[in-house]
C-alpha cells in the first residue's frame, strides 16, 4: 500500500499540475527581471558554509533558530518560506528566502497575508502544522504583526522566487514588502524531451532552472549546492515526517490519504515509523514526506559538498547525510 502510493505520485502530479505551472509562469512574465544567476558574489564565511532552515516540527521543539542566532553564526542562512517569520521572531535575518509553491492562498500567509480571513475559509491546512501552534490561537493579531515585520525587514533578505508563484497573492505581497527578487524556473522534467514542461517554462521566462525535488526544502538544497556552490551545508527542520506523538489526523495529507484508501483501517498502512539514532525518539512519515525524502537522497548522489543533518529528529537517516547536533555544526563553523 505505502510503496504503491509513493510510486504513483510523480506521474499523477505532472498531469494534474502542468496547466497551473504554465499559467502562473505566463502571469509572472512581466515581473521576472533578475535571475538567480545575477546574485552578487559572496566571499568569506558567507561562502564557506550555510544552514538551510526548513519548517519541520523540530524547529520549534529544538529551538533551532534561537540557537543559531545565539551562536552568532557567520555563514549564509537560507530559510524556506514557511520558516521565514520564525527566523524574524528570533531576530535572525536570512540571507535568502526560498519560495516555490504556486498555491493561491497558502504561501502568502508566510509573508503576512493582507486577506487572511478570506484566504482561510474552509482550509485547516495550517492548523495541522506544528510551526503554527501560536498563530492559530491569535490569527488576526499575529498576521498583522507578521505583515509589519515583513514590511520592515524584507530589504534584508533576497527572495529566491520560483516563476510559478501565485501572481496576485504571493508576488504582489513580495512587491508590496519590497523584497529583492531573484527568479528561477522549476526543473521538473528532462528539458531535452519532446514537449518538456521545463522547456516550455524556460521559453516563457528564460532564467536558470533548478531541480525542486518536489518540495521547497529540497529546492533550497539544490540552490545552496549548485548556484551558491557552498561546500558545507547543514539542514535544520528537515524532518520529512512527524513526532511519534502527533495524531495522524494532524498530518499534512490526512484528508487526501483518507480519500484515496478503500477502507478506514487501510489508513494505518499509509504510515511507516523510524527511530532517530541520536536521540532514540520515534518518528513516522507518510507517502508524501517519504517521497520528498527519497528525492533529496537522489539529489545528494554525486554531490560535491558535505551535507549534514542537524535537524536532531525526523526520518532523514542515511549515510549520505550524516546526522550531527546543531551545536556541533555551529561550533565547527564558529570562526567562519
Amino acid at each position, binding site marked *: 500500500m505505502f510503496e504503491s502510493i509513493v510510486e504513483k505520485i510523480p506521474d499523477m*502530479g505532472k498531469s494534474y499540475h502542468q496547466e497551473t505551472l504554465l499559467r502562473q509562469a505566463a502571469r509572472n512574465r512581466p515581473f521576472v527581471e533578475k535571475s538567480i544567476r545575477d546574485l552578487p558574489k559572496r566571499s568569506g564565511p558567507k561562502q564557506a558554509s550555510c544552514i538551510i532552515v526548513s519548517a519541520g516540527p523540530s524547529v520549534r521543539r529544538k529551538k533551532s533558530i534561537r540557537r543559531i542566532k545565539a551562536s552568532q553564526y557567520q555563514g549564509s542562512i537560507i530559510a524556506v518560506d514557511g520558516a521565514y517569520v520564525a527566523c524574524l521572531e528570533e531576530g535572525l535575518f536570512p540571507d535568502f528566502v526560498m519560495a516555490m*509553491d504556486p498555491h493561491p492562498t497558502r504561501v502568502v500567509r508566510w509573508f503576512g497575508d493582507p486577506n487572511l480571513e478570506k484566504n482561510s475559509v474552509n482550509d485547516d491546512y495550517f492548523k495541522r502544522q506544528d510551526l503554527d501552534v501560536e498563530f492559530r490561537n491569535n490569527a488576526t493579531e499575529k498576521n498583522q504583526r507578521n505583515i509589519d515585520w515583513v514590511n520592515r525587514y524584507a530589504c534584508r533578505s533576497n527572495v529566491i522566487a520560483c516563476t510559478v508563484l501565485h501572481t496576485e497573492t504571493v508576488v504582489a505581497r513580495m512587491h508590496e514588502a519590497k523584497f529583492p527578487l531573484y527568479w528561477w524556473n522549476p*526543473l521538473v522534467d*528532462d528539458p531535452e524531451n519532446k514537449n518538456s514542461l521545463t522547456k516550455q517554462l524556460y521559453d516563457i521566462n528564460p532564467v536558470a532552472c533548478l531541480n525542486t525535488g*518536489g518540495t521547497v526544502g529540497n529546492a533550497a538544497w539544490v540552490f545552496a549546492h549548485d548556484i551558491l556552490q557552498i561546500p558545507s551545508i547543514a539542514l535544520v527542520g528537515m524532518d520529512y515526517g512527524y513526532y511519534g506523538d502527533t495524531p495522524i489526523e494532524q498530518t499534512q495529507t490526512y484528508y*487526501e490519504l483518507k*480519500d484515496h484508501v478503500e477502507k478506514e483501517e487501510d489508513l494505518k498502512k499509509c504510515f511507516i515509523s523510524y527511530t532517530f539514532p541520536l536521540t532514540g525518539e520515534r518518528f513516522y512519515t507518510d507517502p508524501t514526506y517519504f517521497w520528498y525524502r527519497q528525492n533529496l537522497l537522489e539529489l545528494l548522489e554525486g554531490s560535491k559538498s558535505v551535507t549534514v543533518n542537524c535537524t536532531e529528529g525526523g526520518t532523514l537517516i542515511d549515510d549520505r547525510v550524516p546526522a550531527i547536533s546543531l551545536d556541533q555544526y555551529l561550533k565547527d563553523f564558529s570562526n567562519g
Partner: protein
Amino acid sequence: MKKNISVLKGNFQAKKDVLPKTLNEKEEGDLSEKVKKRALASLGGSMVYMERKKRTWDGNV
C-alpha cells in the same frame, strides 16, 4: 440580514418535490475513482518532480 435569512429557512413548501440525484453503479464508480485520483495527485504537493538526472539547466539544449 442574517436574522431574516434564518427566519426564511425551511418555512415553505416547494411546488414540486425536489429529490437528490441518485448515482447509478457506474457513475458512483467513476466518481470514486475521480476522488481517489485527485487525492493522489495532490499528495505530491503543488510541484511536479520527474527529472532525476539534472540538478540545474540554463537553456543550453
